């Protein structure tokens, strides 16, 4: 029954005429990522509520050709294709390269821009002018970009994958990496006014940007191709690119592009081919475990220091400990990670991604461990401390011999819960270039398109990690309580 409905739904979608729908709606919705999206589409620094960029101008020109208005729909860049499939917008117009791989997934229009790859280094770096010079060096590239594929093919570099361009330039200047390889328009935009970095060597490996549309939207694609053709002929594109300083002699090729037909890719079942994919996921899982275990160890120790300071230190220190807990709990982990990874280097403290991730997760969880300990300690009757003091124990002796062992039992369940949550929360560190389990899942899902199969495998791995932890905890808890209660 469900399959029938699904089939009917697909039939419906295919039968729709997207172009007619857009005209009726009066709006062409184009998907793009404005976060660090310069010079394609980005918030105007003078008027941050307004988007600018050459693709903004292009979208408006295209929409005008279709007789409608353009509306940008924000979407994370490396998730544009799945979002297009879901129907979040009509087209992708955001530096999508015309590659066989992309053409297997979406229908691509004729090209609207000829890009090339560019190496960017710090201003004082010498002799990193070609791809082969980058071997053995830490090099940054944007997630699922043409540059990343190129570097992966040539091999031999210590690759760092970034979610955005701003972050890779920060790391370049912070000397975490030696070079960034990226599309020429981005390189021009970021490097031209920045004396600390330079374009190193000539651009290479040219390719085309095209508009992505769903395969079934044939009429829409035809209309877009015609519109692009007209813009090329009328020099409308030339005007836009000159306005943004992006016009070069390569753009002459736009006029005589000959499309190559590419068949839709057969669906990959990663579950059927699990021996190929599971090891990759497991490698990510190793990083997840390392991160979680080390960060949790840090949290458990720092949390103890914080709770001791809060309960027993003199007023100013106790107040500081309390402020620490409140500030950490009241701000997002994501921001804390950004501050540690990208903020600290500006104060001269440069941590590598792993250390920054440990520090961020550990300090964040320390606040919640401190609260767990406090609840545990305060759940003990006051008579316990009083009895210990009456017997001549000092406050610290009473804490070590009487309070701590009893509080430990109370505190084990919430701390274990936090440890299990840490396995899952650690996925957030992918924003500071750590490639852990969820990031591996994301990258594989994007290249295979099998979100479900990989998702099941990944979820399975997470479960296999956290279930033993929870079993161990309940055993420990039982053992401790069996003796004394």
């Amino acid at each position, binding site marked *: 029954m469900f399959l029938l409905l699904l089939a009917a739904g697909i039939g419906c979608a295919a039968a729709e005429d997207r172009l007619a729908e857009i005209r009726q709606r009066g709006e062409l919705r184009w998907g793009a990522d404005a976060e660090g999206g310069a010079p394609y589409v980005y918030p105007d620094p003078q008027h941050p509520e307004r988007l600018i960029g050459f693709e903004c101008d292009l979208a408006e020109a295209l929409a005008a050709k279709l007789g409608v208005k353009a509306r940008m729909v924000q979407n994370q860049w490396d998730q544009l294709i799945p979002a297009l499939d879901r129907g979040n917008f009509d087209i992708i117009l955001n530096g999508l390269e015309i590659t066989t791989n992309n053409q297997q997934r979406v229908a691509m229009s004729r090209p609207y821009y000829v890009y090339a790859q560019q190496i960017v280094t710090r201003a004082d770096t010498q002799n990193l002018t070609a791809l082969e010079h980058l071997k053995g060096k830490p090099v940054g590239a944007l997630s699922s970009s043409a540059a990343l594929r190129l570097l992966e093919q040539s091999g031999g570099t210590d690759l760092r994958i970034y979610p955005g361009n701003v972050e890779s330039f920060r790391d370049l200047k912070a000397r975490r990496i030696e070079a960034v390889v990226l599309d020429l328009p981005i390189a021009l935009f970021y490097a031209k006014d920045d004396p600390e970095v330079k374009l190193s060597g000539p651009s290479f490996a040219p390719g085309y940007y095209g508009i992505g549309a769903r395969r079934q939207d044939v009429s829409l694609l035809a209309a877009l191709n015609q519109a692009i053709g007209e813009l090329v002929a009328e020099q409308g594109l030339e005007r836009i690119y000159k306005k943004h300083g992006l016009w070069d002699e390569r753009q002459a090729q736009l006029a005589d592009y000959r499309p190559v037909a590419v068949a839709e890719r057969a669906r990959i079942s990663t579950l059927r081919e699990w021996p190929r994919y599971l090891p990759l996921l497991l490698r990510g899982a190793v990083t997840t475990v390392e991160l979680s275990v080390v960060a949790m160890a840090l949290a458990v120790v720092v949390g103890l220091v914080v709770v001791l300071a809060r309960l027993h230190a003199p007023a100013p220190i106790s107040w500081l400990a309390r402020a620490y807990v409140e500030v950490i709990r009241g701000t997002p982990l994501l921001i804390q990670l950004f501050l540690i990874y990208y903020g600290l280097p500006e104060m001269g403290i440069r941590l590598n991604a792993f250390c920054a991730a440990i520090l961020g997760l550990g300090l964040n969880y320390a606040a919640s461990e401190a609260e767990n300990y406090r609840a545990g300690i305060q759940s003990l*009757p006051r*008579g*316990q401390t*009083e*009895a*210990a*003091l*009456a*017997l*001549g*124990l*000092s406050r610290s*002796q009473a804490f070590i*011999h*009487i309070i701590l*062992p*009893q509080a430990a*039992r109370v505190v084990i369940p919430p701390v274990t819960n936090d440890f299990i949550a840490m396995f899952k929360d650690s996925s957030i560190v992918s924003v500071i270039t750590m490639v852990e389990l969820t990031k591996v899942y994301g990258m594989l899902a994007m290249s295979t398109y099998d979100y479900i199969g990989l998702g099941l495998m990944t979820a399975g791995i997470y479960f296999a990690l956290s279930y033993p932890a929870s079993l161990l905890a309940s055993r420990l808890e039982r053992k401790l309580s069996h*003796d*004394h*209660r």
Partner: protein
Amino acid sequence: MITVEKLFKSYAKTRVLHGIDHAQQRGEAVVLIGPSGCGKSTFLRCLNQLEIPDSGRITIDGVTVEGGQPPRTAREKEQQRQLRLRSGMVFQSFNLFPHLTVLENITLSPRVVKREPAAEAEARARALLVKVGLEAKAFAYPNHLSGGQQQRVAIARALAMEPRVMLFDEPTSALDPELRDEVLRVMLQLVEEGMTMIVVTHEMQFAREVADRILFFEGGRVLESGPPEQIFSHPLNERTREFLRRTDARRP
């Protein structure tokens, strides 16, 4: 053995102790009686510094502590510790350490505070367990003992530090009547051995039989003191008479 001079204590705006003076001989057993909230427990807790009096002076076996602030300097802290080491405290709610066995409860303090060797501390703990009649329970955890047994362990635990004075804060109030006797018997035995004791209790029978002196507390003052026969048979103070009438009516 015990000297208390002008002890004052207030919580917020309520004055709990109105300048208590007290002197007690070695081997003397003193029982404090009086209505609830009259300050007798606070008095006891001041003696071993679980409460810091606002002013006044406490001397036990030659160690003197002045009221006022909690101790700050190392010397003040050492004075406080010495005072605590000279007094053993038994609480209404036993306050045994539930994560330790009976034996460990008793040996913890001698080992941690006095750094006694394990064997020595254990030998004395076992002797004390024999004394309170619980030698069979050495390896039991407190939660497997009855209330009366727990309180006897608590007494043994306090005695293990070899205090010069024993302080009992309503030791039988949390116990069912049939369990009280076993605790009172142990206390009686201590009195007979010549232990200096202060007992806060509502057990009038025990007070009458055991005390060398009775102190009647009310409103943070000692209204009347004297040997049991005087207090119980010929109380001078009207308040004492009224209090005894009410307690007698409650416990014939």
